[in-house]
Structure formats: structure tokens, C-alpha cells
């Protein structure tokens, strides 16, 4: 019995000592996946951007030539402004409408319960699929959107959603907002339901109207969720590909060309990988800066 006990003591001691290593060991798979599939490609991106690699042929170092030709390229700058317009336009509406929807459908009653269960579907269904139906609805000949607008008397002539440069950008922003808003709402609803009811009751006793309650109880408690959502939605919009690729493919005349779609165009249609990589790289600092700024605000909001 004594010997058995001694063995058990040593086993237990060694397990405890191993705790640190077990921690590293268990998270190793996750780490390796991330390093392999994310970090190495990013490093590769940086390196490749200094070459003139094309698909099929080896690369030669050309220094900053890619960047220079990019900065002189009007299409590149158009993509930058489009990406900005698309992202800012999308995120503002995603958050505002998402917040409004969340406030409206967050309540008791079977109607709202069903709504809350179903509202996530536009986001859950593959984006390429939903982009397809929007493409169909936006069709200038007999598209249902134009038909409805005409019948309601809101427009005289059909809007050339996809052929008109100004309208095209609006069209894809609408789709992006439609797709992401449910996610925003669900996230905000989850946060709303965690605000203790007693906060509302005590503020009501102090004479707060519903509007005052919104600004002094609801909003402060939503700070961290909202910051996180701003971060996620902006990154998603900056990198958005499938909606634009399916609906407008960057057209008409680069009116909806964003950095993501341009990188695809140049890299795969044009086979100029080196350049394409440089375009992709324009996305990287934007994303990283966003992450840094928003995490800073998040930390402040949480403490």
C-alpha cells in the first residue's frame, strides 16, 4: 500500500509540473493553423509585393515598382475611395438600423419572439446566394424593385441600378446593409437582455422618461458591444467580396471596384500577382489600424 501511494504521489506531482507545458501543447494546433494559414501568407504578401510575379513564371525583385505604378493608377485610387465609401456607408446604416431593429423587436410577445428567431436568416444564408436574388431584383428590365417603385409612384423611369455608376454603389451598399444588420441586431439584443431590469426601474423612479432611459441606461451599457460591432462590420465591409463580385463585378466602369475586387481582377484575370498583392496590402494597414483603435476604446469602455 505504501509503495502504491508513493507512486501516486510522484505521478500527481509530475502532472502538476506539466501544467505549463500542457497548456502550450493543447493550444499548439490552433497556433499552428493560424501561423500557417494566416501569418505566413501575410509575410509572403509583403515579400511578393516587391516582385513582378505572374502566374506560372518565377518572380524577380523589382523593388517598389509595383507600388509606384499603383499610386499612379487611377483605378487603384478609385478603388480606395470606393472601398471607403462602401465601408463607411454600410457600417453607419448597419449600426443605426441594427440598433433600431434590436430595440423594436426586443420585447415579450410571440410576434417579437418569432421575429427574433427568424431575423438572423438573411445573414446565415450564404452571401453569394442572397446576392444572386438581389441581382435579379435589381434587373433594369422588369426587375421587381423598379416595378414596385414605379407602381408606388415613387419614380417615373426605371433606375438603372447596375448600369448607372452612382446607383450601383448604392445598390451594393443596400445589399451589404441588408445582410449584416440582422447580425448587429442579434448581438445588441443579447447585450440588451443582460442589462439588469432594476436599472430601468430605479431610473424611472427618479423621473426618467423612456427617451432619457435610452440615453442614460441603455446606451452606456451597450458601449462594448457597439465598439466590437463597429470593428467587425468595418473589417467585413472593407474585405467584402462576394456581394460585389456576384452583383456588379466591380463595374460599371469601376464604379464599384473595391480593393478586394481589384486584387482579384488584377491577380486572376490579369495574372499580375505582384501588383495584385500590393493592392491587397493596402487593405492590411487599414484593418490593423482599425483593430488597434477600436480595442483601445473597448478597453476604456470595459473598465
Amino acid at each position, binding site marked *: 500500500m505504501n509503495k502504491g501511494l508513493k507512486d501516486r504521489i510522484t505521478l500527481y506531482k509530475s502532472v502538476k509540473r506539466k*501544467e505549463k507545458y500542457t*497548456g*502550450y501543447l*493543447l*493550444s499548439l*494546433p*490552433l*497556433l499552428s493553423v*493560424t501561423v500557417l*494559414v*494566416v501569418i505566413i*501568407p*501575410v509575410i509572403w*504578401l509583403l515579400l511578393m509585393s516587391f516582385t513582378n510575379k505572374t502566374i506560372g513564371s518565377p518572380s524577380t525583385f523589382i523593388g517598389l515598382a509595383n507600388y509606384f505604378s499603383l499610386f499612379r493608377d487611377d483605378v487603384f485610387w478609385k478603388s480606395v475611395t470606393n472601398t471607403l465609401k462602401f465601408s463607411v456607408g454600410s457600417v453607419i446604416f448597419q449600426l443605426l438600423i441594427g440598433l433600431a431593429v434590436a430595440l*423594436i*423587436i426586443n*420585447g415579450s*410577445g410571440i*410576434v*417579437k419572439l418569432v421575429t427574433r*428567431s427568424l431575423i438572423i436568416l*438573411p445573414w*446565415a*444564408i*450564404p*452571401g453569394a*446566394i442572397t*446576392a*444572386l*436574388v*438581389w*441581382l*435579379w431584383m435589381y434587373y433594369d428590365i*422588369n426587375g421587381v424593385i423598379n*416595378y414596385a417603385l414605379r407602381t408606388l409612384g415613387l419614380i417615373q423611369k426605371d433606375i438603372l441600378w447596375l448600369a448607372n455608376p452612382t446607383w450601383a454603389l448604392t445598390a451594393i451598399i443596400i445589399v451589404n446593409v441588408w445582410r449584416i444588420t440582422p447580425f448587429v441586431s442579434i*448581438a445588441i*439584443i443579447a*447585450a440588451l437582455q443582460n442589462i439588469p431590469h432594476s436599472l430601468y*426601474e430605479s431610473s*424611472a423612479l427618479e423621473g426618467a422618461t*423612456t427617451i432619457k432611459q435610452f440615453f442614460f441606461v441603455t446606451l452606456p451599457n451597450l458601449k*462594448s*458591444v457597439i465598439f*466590437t460591432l463597429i470593428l467587425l462590420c468595418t*473589417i*467585413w465591409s*472593407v*474585405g*467584402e*467580396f462576394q456581394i460585389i463580385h456576384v452583383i456588379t463585378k466591380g463595374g460599371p466602369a469601376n464604379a464599384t471596384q473595391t480593393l478586394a475586387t481589384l*486584387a*482579384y481582377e488584377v491577380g486572376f484575370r490579369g495574372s499580375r*500577382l505582384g501588383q*495584385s*498583392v500590393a493592392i*491587397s496590402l493596402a*487593405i492590411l494597414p487599414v*484593418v*490593423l489600424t482599425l483593430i488597434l483603435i477600436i480595442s483601445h476604446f*473597448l478597453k476604456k469602455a470595459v473598465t
Partner: protein
Amino acid sequence: MTQKVGRFRPRLTSFLAILILLVFFFPLIWMLVTSIKPHDLIYSSNPFDFSHLTMDNYFKVLHDTSFIRWIINSFIVAVVSTFISLVVSIFAAYSFIKFDFPGKDSIWKGILICYLLPTSLLFIPLYTFITKLGLFDTYFALILVYPSFLAPFCTWLLYGYFKSIPSEIEEVALLEGCTYTQCILRIVIPVAIPGIISTGVLALTLAWGEYIYALVFINTNLLKTLPVGVASLEAGDVYSWGPIMAAAILSCIPPTIAYLTVQRFFLKTNIFLSLGR
């Protein structure tokens, strides 16, 4: 419980809720409507003409296109990559919670940042890697790459979920005779199964709907995943919108079923609260 505080005109908001649902579901409804219209009605000047409806489009899709192959492809890729990601995430999430090792915080933050990098940024270098490895145009291309965004996502969700399991349950198990391994197998994982399943289902829908990697890494029509395949139906004006929408509707069914079964758990456990990292 009828409390006047916090209730803002319930009937008005219920009515608005129905409106909101209609607005957001209109495209999906239109998808359905178009899919059951015959050719002439689709292209008629009145899109709201529902005089004679048909199921022909569905037959056309299933018969004339590689739709069934696309579903199988998506299914295989999604299931395998989700499974890999779940296993990786369970280990990682558990280790982040139970063990304290130096650098843990920075590792976690680093992984989250990598998760946030958009796929439209990474697809080019990954494309060259995949081609170099000879994996272009295979399932493996996607199965290998999908965990890059599935695993951090799952880890993030599972971390929040595991945290809500009180450690005392494990402590009692240890006192009752379990070794560390027995404790994990017999107590932690069974208790965590609902969370693991929900996380798995969410990851499945993410994998199911992924577009850019699937577009770039796979060329052969028969190997395409569902979103890429269905979107490709539109090109070239070969298929009319009827069959295209029928294909779209069929594509919506799996994610819808998945989400409706999981959403009960989704809302309740407030996974989004792990958003405050």
C-alpha cells in the same frame, strides 16, 4: 408580469416587428416566388403575375446542372473542416481557461487579430501555396484553409461557453475518484456537448457560405461548392432566372434548418458577451 417600466408601446412595436420581418424577408420570398414561376411569367412585364405556377425549375436545376454534386462537395468540405476546427478549438479553449502559461494573453490576442484579417486579403498568397503543393482543384485545398477562420471563431465561442461551466463540478469529480483525463472525458465534455454542438453548427454555416477561397481554389465545375456553383449559373445567360432561383432556394434550406435548431441556445447563453475581451 405586467410592468409599465421599459415597455414602449408593445402593440406598435409588435406591428413594426412584423414589418421588419417582411422587409428583411422580401428578397427570400421573392426568391421563392421566382423559383415557382414558369419562364414566360418570369420575364413578363408584370412580375406580380402569379397566374400559373410550376415546379419545373426545380427539376431543371436538379437534372440539368451539377447542383447535386455541388451540395455533396459543400457538405464534405464543411463537415470535415468544421470537425478539424472543433477539435483544435476544444483543446485550445480548454487550455486557455484551465491552464496559466506565460504569453497566454498575447497568443490569444494574436489569434483574434489573425481571425479578423479578411479572406479577400489572404486568398492570393494562399492560392500560390495551394498551387505549389499541388492541391489546386481539390477538396483538400479548402479543407486545409477553412480552419484558418473556423478555428479562431470556434475557440472564441467555446471559450465563453467553457468559462460558464463551474470549475467546482470538475473538482467534485476529482474528489470522487477521477483522474484528470477521466474528468475531462466523463464530466467536462458531456456537460459541454450542447455548446460544442451549437458552435459546430454555426461553424458549419460559415464554412457552407464561404465564397472567395472556393471560387479561387477550385476550377472544375464538378468540384465546386454550392455558393460558387449556383452563382456561376448566372453567367453566360444559359439558365433563366427560374432555375437559378430554384437552386438558390434549395441552397437556403440547410443553413436555415441549422440556425433554427440552434438559435434557442444561441440567444440564451449570450455568446456575444464574450465580445468584451
